[in-house]
């Protein structure tokens, strides 16, 4: 018996564009091609046309994953990080045998449990109890296994009182708790987890995270995908970084997270979302751009600590949204959160925008002068309605750097600890004999 749990060798997965995600594009493209083809035929010589055809054939396929190789030892908790569309989910889908690779080979030692989504197969008409059994069976548990753990599952989910109520009457929070509870009590040798923590409220997320770390501590092999860098840092020792389907790094998690957050997308103070970067389930919220502006209203990538910074979030609402809050996270490149702030934090503002109508918006705020320390920071974006839905989230929307020139304490050219560097009004009083008395 070897101590390898997962061995992946030269794994690749090719998708035909238009077949998988964007059906509408195929139709439009084929219409376009129909109209353009005769024109092109006249215009181009045969040779040119052939090369063009080849180019198009190559473009119709995309590699969601290409030549990925790694090993996971037994009991290891491996993090998988990367931007949207980097191939993380494809990798997990292949390893959990939902879809098969186009190239390469993988060897998995042990029973795999995959948690690509919670509540798979939940039926709204069935009661909580019935759904626990059904969902358990779908995840590969036997009836007796579920029976043994049933009480534990129900206690964990905190829905005891409603366990015999159809889940269509559940609040979304209850639904998620129950769904996660079933999944969390799955006991495979290898657990493959995708972003399940990205749902639910903060308290629920804490609970899930706690459960995940206890799973990790039990010596189970875990493959963990998340956008939540602090979760990755907490749960994993080592991580791999995927970018555009390639594995670009494998390192100790802090190093990998640092590499991921600070490299790659040197956006010049602005992040613009292309149509294919926006997940379809974010509708009606459509992010357009996030920008950083300095005191002179210029879009900048690097700002001075002593100047105020304007952050602009531009977005489109395709339908009115109730209780919407659009906001940002500010994080260090080590994955520590500095702050979270929403545009409707002010109760009066929230009252005023109770229902935000259709339209194009800019939510803007100012980070005051003398606030951030020097270094590189990550700006995340979140649009949600509290306890109702998260429309969109990108924890690494863009990065920017802060220059400390002129900040307090610059007379000492040393690195200051901590992400903030406020100008505090120190008072120095001389101790006279009087106060000693």
């Amino acid at each position, binding site marked *: *018996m070897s101590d390898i749990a997962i061995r992946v060798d030269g794994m690749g997965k090719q*998708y035909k564009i238009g*077949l*998988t995600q964007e059906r509408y594009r195929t139709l439009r493209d084929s219409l376009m091609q129909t109209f353009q083809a005769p024109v092109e035929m006249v215009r181009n010589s045969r040779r040119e046309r052939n090369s063009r055809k080849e180019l198009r054939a190559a473009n119709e396929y995309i590699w969601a994953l290409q030549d990925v190789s790694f090993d996971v030892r037994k009991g290891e908790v491996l993090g998988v990080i990367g931007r949207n569309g980097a191939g993380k989910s494809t990798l997990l*889908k*292949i*390893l*959990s*045998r*939902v*879809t*098969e*690779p*186009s*190239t*390469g*080979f*993988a*060897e*998995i*030692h*042990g*029973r*795999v449990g*995959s948690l*690509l*989504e919670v509540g*798979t*197969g939940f*039926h709204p*008409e*069935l009661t909580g109890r*019935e759904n626990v*059994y*059904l969902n358990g*069976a*779908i*995840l*590969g548990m*036997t*009836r007796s296994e579920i029976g043994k753990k049933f009480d534990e599952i129900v206690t964990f989910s905190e829905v005891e009182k409603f366990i015999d109520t159809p889940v269509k009457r559940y609040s979304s929070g209850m639904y998620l708790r129950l769904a996660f509870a079933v999944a969390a009590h799955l006991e495979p040798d290898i657990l493959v987890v995708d972003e399940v923590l990205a749902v639910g409220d903060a308290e629920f997320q804490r609970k899930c995270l706690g459960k995940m770390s206890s799973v990790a501590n039990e010596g189970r092999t875990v493959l963990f995908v998340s956008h939540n860098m602090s979760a990755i840092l907490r749960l994993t020792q080592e991580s791999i970084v995927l970018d555009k389907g390639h594995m670009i790094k494998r390192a100790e998690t802090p190093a990998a997270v640092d590499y991921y957050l600070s490299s790659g997308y040197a956006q010049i103070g602005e992040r613009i979302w292309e149509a294919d970067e926006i997940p379809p389930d974010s509708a009606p919220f459509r992010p357009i751009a996030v920008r950083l502006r300095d005191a002179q209203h210029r879009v900048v990538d690097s700002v001075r600590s002593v100047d105020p910074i304007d952050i602009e979030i531009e977005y489109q609402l395709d339908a009115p949204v109730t209780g919407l809050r659009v906001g940002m996270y500010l994080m260090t490149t080590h994955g520590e959160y500095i702050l979270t702030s929403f545009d409707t934090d002010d109760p009066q503002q929230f009252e005023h925008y109770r229902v935000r109508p259709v339209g194009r918006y800019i939510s803007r705020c100012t980070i005051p002068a003398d606030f951030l320390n020097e270094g590189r920071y990550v700006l995340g974006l979140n649009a949600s309605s509290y306890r109702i839905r998260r429309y969109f989230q990108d924890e690494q929307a863009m990065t920017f750097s802060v220059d400390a020139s002129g900040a307090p304490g610059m007379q000492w050219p040393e690195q200051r600890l901590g992400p903030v560097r406020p100008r505090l009004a120190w008072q120095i009083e001389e101790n006279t004999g009087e106060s000693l008395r």
Partner: protein
Amino acid sequence: MAQSSLVQNEKEEIIYIRPPQGWLGLNLKDLWLYRELIYFLIWRDVKVRYKQTALGASWAIIQPLMTMVVFTVLFGRVAKVPTDGIPYPIFSYTALLPWGLFTKALTDAGKSLIHNRSMITKVYFPRLVIPISSVVSGIVDFALAFTILIGMLIYYNSDLGGNYDITPNYAVITLPLFLLLAMVTSLGVGLWLSALNVIYRDVNYILPFITQIWLFITPVAYPASMIPEKWQLVYALNPMTGVVEGFRWALLGMEPAPGPMVAVSTVISIIILITGLFYFRRMERTFADLV
């Protein structure tokens, strides 16, 4: 699915994942491991089927009953279709039972993969589980509708119904076999349709049309004996012919036994099932990407 195999090795399973090539084995072992999932999916289908309907499970009875009434008026009274001395209502109802099972299985299985999209794209399990459970869950409706047939048998044998004397004879013991044949046929056609439906959604539109045409070429409203002798075996190439005639023979004691017809239908039915299984397995690998 990925070409994968489970190997018992010092209590440890090793799963190999490779790009699949060509035709796959049926992997019946995996199917056996997931038998409880089949059970749960059947149970879910049955539980949910008539939720929030005013008439509930009586729909399972109303459907064949109403069809029987219409057939009795049109074919029994107006067209005067010969039924070998058997009252037309019971003659057609006996055929409508397996026919209902078949059409329901076709419709449900055909759409089953699309309906269970969320499961297919998120969790591994043998995909065969889905059409199998949707075909088998039709048994419950069949059983409910069957009770009416028993009632009709009692009625037509009593003074009230005219003392027809259509007591089932020894042949009734073969009924489970014909039920099995009906299931095999349903599953075979259902597998083809469900796999095709993932790739070509046209199947959704063709389905009602298929069942309609198929009804006309199956001896539901009329006896198979109306077909000229020399065409009988060709007629039996429709596997539902054997099923329906078998049901009548087993339940109503109609003579002679439809031996050759049933034989032909059984062979065809098994061919459809086996090709359906292999076709399904071949297409299965693309389900998660296409569904």
